[in-house]
């Protein structure tokens, strides 16, 4: 990519600036640009075809369903179900009498807490472990490799395993907290009630951490040693060096991880669904579990589609906020 960039930009000054009507960018070298484009289009064609069929068209279809009254009674009509106008959206966002309204607000609140805590845990924990692993120590290679293991354990296994570990009577967590160390006097119930949100947050952090750690470790290794040495000679301690050298250099990586991890966490489905069941209960119901349950168990497909559209808009808003906050970091990196 770098070579292409330099070719096009270096030929840039020779070409007079394009008038808008021409709408073409500076053509690549070697006059036959169109033939080259044709080859590129042929290369992307299969992927484009699949993405149109599975991503684009169904997403548009979902947008249509959001305005349809598709439920148990109209299900046989499929896409021909009667129009509902904005009623699905009104019911979700404003109708206090509608149980779906409360369900949605509750799930949105849980998802917000889940996302903020999980992402904070993953990013901060990942950075701290990356700092630890960035030092010279015996067994460095094997420790770095083994640290990735939780990320490879499938989410549904994570849910089953932690669901077992959270068991109130025989689970290892309570055994350690109550029986072995005596930190707590009563055995907490993890899989029901307010604790159940923590029962899905902690395994999510555990599984997500290694990926972030890996990215940050790669970033740390790219920080020139001379910077730290020079600062150390000038009398900067490790903590000041972290805040004035390491952290600013990692900022673009942190920004990208923040973006990805928020989207990933907000769309979490597997861990609550396997650990706590199709209805995780009011304390741990996330947006995705709510939408899937209302759509497929209660046949409220119009509701599900409308709620999905709202979630998508909220995520787009997050991307806009993110771009506004980090645009500069992304540009300086290039």
């Amino acid at each position, binding site marked *: 990519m770098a070579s292409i960039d330099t070719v096009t930009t270096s030929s840039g000054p020779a070409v007079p600036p394009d008038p808008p009507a021409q709408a073409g960018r500076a053509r690549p070298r070697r006059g036959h640009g169109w033939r080259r484009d044709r080859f590129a289009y042929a290369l992307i064609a299969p*992927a484009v075809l699949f993405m149109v069929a599975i991503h684009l068209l169904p997403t548009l279809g979902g947008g249509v369903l959001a305005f349809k009254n598709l439920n148990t009674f109209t299900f046989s009509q*499929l896409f021909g179900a009667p129009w509902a106008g904005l009623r699905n959206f009104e019911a979700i966002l404003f109708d206090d009498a509608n149980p779906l309204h409360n369900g949605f607000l509750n799930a949105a609140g849980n998802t917000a807490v889940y996302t903020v805590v999980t992402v904070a845990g993953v990013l901060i924990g990942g950075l701290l472990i990356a700092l630890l692993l960035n030092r010279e120590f015996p067994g460095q290679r094997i420790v770095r490799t083994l640290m990735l293991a939780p990320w490879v354990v499938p989410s549904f296994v994570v849910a089953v395993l932690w669901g077992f570990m959270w068991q109130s009577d025989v689970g290892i967590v309570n055994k350690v907290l109550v029986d072995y160390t005596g930190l707590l006097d009563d055995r907490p119930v993890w899989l029901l009630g307010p604790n159940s949100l923590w029962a899905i947050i902690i395994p999510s952090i555990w599984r997500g951490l290694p990926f972030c750690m890996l990215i940050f470790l790669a970033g740390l290794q790219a920080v020139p040693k001379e910077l730290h040495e020079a600062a150390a000679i000038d009398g900067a301690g490790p903590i000041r060096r972290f805040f004035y050298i390491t952290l600013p250099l990692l900022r673009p990586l942190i920004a990208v991880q923040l973006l990805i991890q928020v989207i990933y966490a907000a769309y979490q489905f597997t861990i609550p669904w396997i650990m706590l069941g199709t209805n995780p209960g009011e304390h741990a119901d996330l947006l995705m579990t709510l939408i899937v349950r209302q759509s497929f168990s209660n046949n409220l497909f119009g509701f599900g589609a409308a709620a999905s559209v709202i979630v998508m808009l909220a995520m787009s808003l997050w991307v806009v906020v993110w771009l506004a906050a980090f645009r500069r970091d992304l540009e300086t990196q290039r």
Partner: protein
Amino acid sequence: MTRRRATNWGLNALTYLVLIVMLAPIGWLILSSLQTNGALSSGEYDVFSPTFEAFSGMWKSVDFGHYFANSLIICGAAALFATLFAASAGYALARFRFRGHRAYSLTVIGTQLIPGSLFLLPLFIGFIWLRQNTPISLYDTRIGMILVYTAFFTPVAIYFMRSFFQAIPRDLEDAAMVDGCSRFGAFVRIVLPNAAPGLVATFIYAFLFAWDELLFVQALTESRAETIPIGIHNFIAGYAQEYAQLMAAGVVSTVPVIVAFYATQRWLVRGMTAGAVKG
């Protein structure tokens, strides 16, 4: 100086401690799968006499072999197709500034922003419609799941492959084309063999994600094409007290991906961190 050595030693110890804490749940999974059900429900583990009872029992409780075979076929085929499509699309993005380049690469990332449920519902309804009105059967078939997963994991695979192609010097293709290779010939005969580690890494990466996918498979299948996560869910529904077998099932479903990951770890890590070191 001694103080510095003490800190260093303390940080080393902390590192090993963190590793132990991170690996402990996996150790607990393995340990529990080697116990009898009675030991698990009473909490009295007998670490020194492991038993493989649970591993033989789990295949009988639910038809785990059926789910396992489905997972292997669906995820393997989908990862293969996704890798092939991503290889060609990733090459186009890495090498050519075609018209729509930027729009296309933004669209590829953009797909990751769509909540699964938004395109899941129409896909489900579309699959049902196809079953009712045409002879095409995608609902609850392996082919249907392979199609969905191929599309699903192609975008990430494209970014993966692109970073591998960017690391291959252009001169290789230029030389091949001087020697009379066509563009496509140069891609297939020169670039792809050089990108072999990238192809393997992309395949495994897509496979790992497909193996873990639950949202779509729980909606688009009901008996014939169900994969391991559904098997685990059915297991919990029917045999909630069989913890030992459940843990054994967890081990069995983790082994393929752990082996695949560690066998190709060097290339995988390169692909995953490619964006980290350079834009």
